[in-house]
Structure formats: structure tokens, C-alpha cells
């Protein structure tokens, strides 16, 4: 019997009893529908969870300057100044796997408001991108802007702990605080993040434009100012040598030291303490690392075989947690999927067995007019598969519709999963084969004489 004829015969046979065919497929429809809905809602929630975890900084790459060494004594990461703010801009521009990047300059010093003072565990000079990298919201007020960065404006955003320590519950917005005798206007307060995985308070933080921190507050690299609460009032302007100069002769006459001290403008080439970059997804972290490495090799003229003048760190522990969470979710859903499909398959088998018994005479007749047992086997198998596939298709629609409703009315995160749909089709076909085989085999083993005489 030709393939398409078998399928047509199966369709006809099923249409002879549409109600029963419908009820039979109901098991598969509900099974596949549940699987699709679960998968879509599940992957939605799982990606929401992933997003939540990555907001903890799981996707963050930390680019640190390299290590200085002198006479066999190395000074540890960040002891040379090799990163420039331009590196950061180019990383953001040229690395497709990097979602956002921000330069960072660190300081550790005293912050004063009125008669209170506090040394926050971290003072970051950065750009607005920092908040993007860390997925950090501003609870009150607003973040400083790129214009503030460009103009080294004395504005800052405070973490909750710092606000509590300095302001005792009063709103800090618009207030002036002093950092090493430079006054900053508080423009925003960060949302609370609590402790990080190491137990360090993340809210004990002050963010300001990196130009301001660099040129007005520290005036030099991190290594030199790493003593806490340094009382030095150094306002020396950083005029680092042009590390990676590629420009020609300058258009304007060089400014004198006096001019520079009077008017601290961002120097075009200066170093920063680190670059924070966020990969687009946790899966893209290795790609992003590769892209950033290649880019920095090129920018820093590092030949193959030469030691890097930078290091890149990622949050391996967190990304491991992340992938294991995802894995757990997927496996859980898979178990549920399998159980419901097996239940649906048993339903198919049950009804197909009834159908074989009921159509014993038909089977006898078909055998009498020349159907071989494999023709009968194929006919019933194809019927079961057609039932399962139709059920699978309807189940996909049902599941997709269901998850759309959930998104619409319950606002749960939902994600359409083409793999789940493909798997559902595949699984429903195999359910048809597996659970349709026994009844079909039973039908094919019938004796035509007995079958014809069957009442």
C-alpha cells in the first residue's frame, strides 16, 4: 500500500468515528499542551531567574590593568596603569557580546556631611554605565549623566548605607557632602542591594563621575591612595604620559601647569583602575572575554607570546550557580513532560486496543481481500501516529494559547520555545509509534477466519 494511501485510509478510518478520535487525542492534546505551556512558562521564569541572578553581577567581566614587577617582585594586579577610558569606549563599540561597559576609578577616603563622617568601603568614579553593568536602580533622584562625566561635575550618587550613616534618615538629595575637601552635590540614592556573596555590604558606596574622582579627588592612581581616610589634600592633576598615543601633533598649544591646575580638564589620555563590562547573556561570557582580549591585544600592541598588560576576571562561581539552576529547571520540566506524555500514550493505546477489537471484522475482511499482516500493522500504526500528530499539533496550539493567556492576565514571564515545539512533535509521533504498535501488532496477528466470524 502506498504511503499517502495509507495515510488517507487512516484519516478515513478516523473520520468514521470522529468523537472517539477526538477523545483519544485529548490525552495527547492535554499532554503536549501542558508540556508546551510548562516549557514556555518555565523557560520564561527560568530566564527571569537568570536575569535576577545576573543582576547580582553574574555577567560582569572585570578588566584589570596588568602587573608591575621589579627585580622579581611583582606588585599584584592593577599595579601598572595600562587601561584607558578609550579602551572602555572601544570595548563597548567593537565587542558585540558586551552589552554595556563602564570605566571605574577607585578611591578610599573619608566622606563628610555636617558633623558626621564615614569611610565608604568603595568610592567609584565611573559613568552611568556602571549602573547598567550592575543592573542597579536609582531609588531616589537620578544618576549623573555623561555630561557630568565630561565636565567633571561634582555630583554623586550614594548607596543606602552611606545615606544612613551620614544623613540619619533625612533625604540627601541636593545636599552637599565633602570628599577630601571637594564638595559633591548628591543627585541620587541607589536602591538597596544588600551584601554580596562574600558578605560585603554593597550599599556602602559612593558613585561619582570618574573624571571628578580622578582629577579632583585622588589625582593619581589607585595604588597611591589606597590608604584609608588619607588626610592629604593633594589636588595634583593627573598628567600621565600619553600611554597609547596615536595622535599627531596637537592643534592647541600645551597648557601650562598653572593653567592645568586652575582648570582641571579631563586629560585625553589617562589611566583608569578597571573596566567593568557586562556580557549580553551568561552564555556569552566566554565569547565576550575572547573579544575583549583580542581588542585589547590590538590596542595595546601586544604581540603573540608577549605577556598581557591586563587581566580579565569573570564571576565563575555565579555563572556556575546560574547554569546549574537552569539545568535543574529544564530537567524538572522534562520529567513533567515525560509523565504527561506517557499518560497520553497509554490513553492512545487503550483506545486503539478497543478500536482493534471493534474493527475485528473489518480486519478480517481486509485480510480476506488480500491485505498482508504488515499492511494491517501499518494501517493501525499510521492511524495511531496520525492521531498523535494531530493531537500534538492541537496541543501546541493549546499550550501556546494557554501560555499567552498566562502572560496576558497574570503577567508571568513567558518565552516561546521552538525546541519545545519541535520536541513535542517528535515525542507525540514517537508516542504514537510506541503505544500504537502493540494494538497494531495485535490486529496484524488476527486470523482472518476468526476475525470474519467475530461478532
Amino acid at each position: 500500500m502506498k504511503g499517502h494511501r495509507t495515510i488517507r485510509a487512516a484519516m478515513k478510518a478516523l473520520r468514521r468515528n470522529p468523537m472517539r478520535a477526538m477523545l483519544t487525542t485529548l490525552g495527547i492534546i492535554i499532554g503536549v499542551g501542558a508540556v508546551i505551556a510548562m516549557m514556555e512558562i518555565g523557560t520564561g521564569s527560568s530566564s527571569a531567574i537568570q536575569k535576577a541572578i545576573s543582576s547580582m553581577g553574574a555577567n560582569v567581566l572585570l578588566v584589570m590593568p596588568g602587573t608591575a614587577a621589579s627585580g622579581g617582585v611583582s606588585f599584584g594586579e592593577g599595579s601598572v596603569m595600562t587601561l584607558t577610558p578609550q579602551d572602555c569606549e572601544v570595548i563597548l563599540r567593537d565587542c558585540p557580546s558586551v552589552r554595556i561597559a563602564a570605566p571605574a576609578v577607585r578611591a578610599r577616603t573619608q566622606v563628610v556631611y555636617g558633623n558626621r563622617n564615614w569611610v565608604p568601603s568603595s568610592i567609584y568614579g565611573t559613568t552611568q554605565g556602571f549602573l547598567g553593568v550592575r543592573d542597579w536602580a536609582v531609588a531616589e533622584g537620578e544618576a549623573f549623566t555623561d555630561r557630568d562625566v565630561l565636565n567633571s561635575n561634582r555630583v554623586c550618587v550614594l548607596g543606602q548605607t552611606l545615606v544612613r550613616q551620614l544623613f540619619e534618615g533625612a533625604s540627601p538629595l541636593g545636599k552637599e557632602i565633602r570628599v577630601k575637601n571637594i564638595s559633591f552635590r548628591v543627585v541620587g540614592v541607589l536602591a538597596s542591594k544588600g551584601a554580596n556573596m562574600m558578605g560585603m555590604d554593597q550599599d556602602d558606596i559612593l558613585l561619582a563621575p570618574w573624571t571628578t574622582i580622578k582629577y579632583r579627588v585622588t589625582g593619581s592612581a589607585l595604588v597611591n591612595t589606597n590608604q584609608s581616610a588619607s588626610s592629604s589634600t593633594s589636588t595634583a592633576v593627573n598628567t600621565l604620559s600619553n600611554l597609547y598615543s596615536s595622535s599627531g601633533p596637537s592643534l592647541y598649544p600645551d597648557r601650562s601647569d598653572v593653567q592645568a591646575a586652575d582648570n582641571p580638564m579631563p586629560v585625553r589620555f589617562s589611566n583608569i583602575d578597571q573596566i567593568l563590562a557586562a556580557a549580553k547573556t551568561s552564555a556569552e561570557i566566554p565569547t565576550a572575554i575572547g573579544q575583549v582580549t583580542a581588542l585589547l591585544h590590538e590596542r595595546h600592541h601586544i604581540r603573540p607570546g608577549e605577556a598581557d598588560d591586563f587581566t580579565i576576571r569573570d564571576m565563575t562561581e555565579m555563572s556556575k550557580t546560574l547554569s546549574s539552576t537552569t539545568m535543574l529547571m529544564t530537567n524538572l520540566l522534562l520529567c513533567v513532560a515525560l509523565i504527561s506524555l506517557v499518560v497520553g500514550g497509554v490513553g492512545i493505546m487503550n483506545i486503539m486496543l478497543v478500536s482493534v477489537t471493534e474493527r475485528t471484522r473489518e480486519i478480517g475482511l481486509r485480510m480476506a481481500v488480500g491485505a498482508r499482516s504488515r499492511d494491517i500493522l501499518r494501517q493501525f500504526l499510521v492511524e495511531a501516529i496520525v492521531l498523535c500528530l494531530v493531537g500534538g499539533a492541537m496541543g501546541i496550539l493549546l499550550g501556546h494559547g494557554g501560555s499567552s493567556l498566562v502572560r496576558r492576565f497574570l503577567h508571568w514571564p513567558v518565552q516561546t520555545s521552538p525546541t519545545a515545539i519541535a520536541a513535542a512533535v517528535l515525542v507525540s509521533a514517537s508516542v504514537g509509534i510506541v503505544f500504537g504498535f502493540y494494538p497494531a501488532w495485535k490486529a496484524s496477528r488476527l486470523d482472518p477466519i476468526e476475525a470474519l466470524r467475530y461478532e
Partner: protein
Amino acid sequence: MELIELRDVHKTYYIGDISVPVLKGISLTVAPGELVALMGASGSGKSTLMNILGCLDRPSSGEYWLDGQETSRLSSDQRALVRNRKLGFVFQNFNLLPRTSALENVAMPLSYTAEHLSDRQARQRAEEMLCRVGLQDRMDHEPSQLSGGQQQRVAIARALVNHPSLLFADEPTGNLDSHTSEEVLAMFQQLNQADGITIIVVTHDASVAEHTRRVIHIHDGVIVNGAPAAGARPGGVA
């Protein structure tokens, strides 16, 4: 050459350890173009004989030559092929597929033929057969919309669709009233005379047997009345 030739055919059923001989040495020949009635009381073995003749069953011993082919040792698939190519069946209870049009019922055996007809050819062939049994205006009717006589005619058309050389009718009039019985039997006679199809009618009704030209009586698994050509000649070739 004979169309059917049985040589000393035995059939024994085994129920547990007890053997039940049903056919006890049947020898029989049927020439092409004959219209034969196979008669016997219930339990006489006529159904068993007809199953063997129809290649639905195999004899326990003996030989069965059908159209020059020894069929008693064929596998079930090979017998299916023989049934499809050479034999047609008409049953007492019509055995039409429910909720399926007359046309599709008739075309059903074509889906198993080895020669692959196109769908249109198959349809044409089925239409032709329905015209031949006088149901050209009932092609799209389902069995439930047809009378008993019409249903049996659909069944005859189905039996003829593969152009068999041999047609078996198992109590073809058992479920019909006397008037439609006459019609159906007349159709058998017409098919036999006009188209030269060999027909074997199994019946216990003497009035049905009257419509045939030769009657074979079976009693307790042996042929009691061989009638003209056959005779109980073990191993004999007519």
C-alpha cells in the same frame, strides 16, 4: 486445466490433546467457468472446506492446486497475494465498511494490489464495477443508506474489482428476503455465463443450490455426492 484441484485434503483441529478431524480426505476438481454449490448441514465441514479453497486456511495434509499453483504450503503473505489476485469473496453479512461510501468500499481491495493503480484509475475501476451490479446511482451512499440487496451487490462489486477468476459466496442470500435473493443469484448466474467467472456458492439452502449447475454435498467431512466431473478419486487428475 482445472481451476481447482484438491487431492486428499485433510483438516484436523486440535483442542488441547483432542484432535477433531473436520475434513477427512476431500478430493475435488472444479473447471473454469463452473457455477458450483457447496452444500452441507452445519458442522459438516463446508465452511472449513471453503476456507481452504479461499486460501484463508491451510489443509493439514493433502494438496490444493489453484490455477496451476500449489497453495497448501504458501505462507500467509503469499496466500494474501493469491486472495488479492485470484479470488473474490461475498459474505452472508456483507461485511461492508461502515460510514464509508459504496465507491470506497469497492475500491478498498485495490489499495492492496501489487500493481499500483493511480487514484483515478482505481476510482474508475470501482465505478465500472458498481455500474456492472446496477448501482451507478448509489455510488456515494453509505451502507446504512442501502437496502440489504444493494449492500450485497456492493459486496459483489468489491469482490469483482480485482478481476478474480474465482468468486466465493458464503451464504450470500442468508440475510436477504426471497425476492432479493433471486436477484443476487441471478446476478451470479449472469456473471458466470457472461463473464465466465467461476463461482462457488456455499449454502445449506437447497433452493439456492437449484440455481447452480453442479452441487457438491458434504457430510461429516467427506463428499457424499460428487456430481458430474469430480467424484472421489484420490490423487486422480481429471
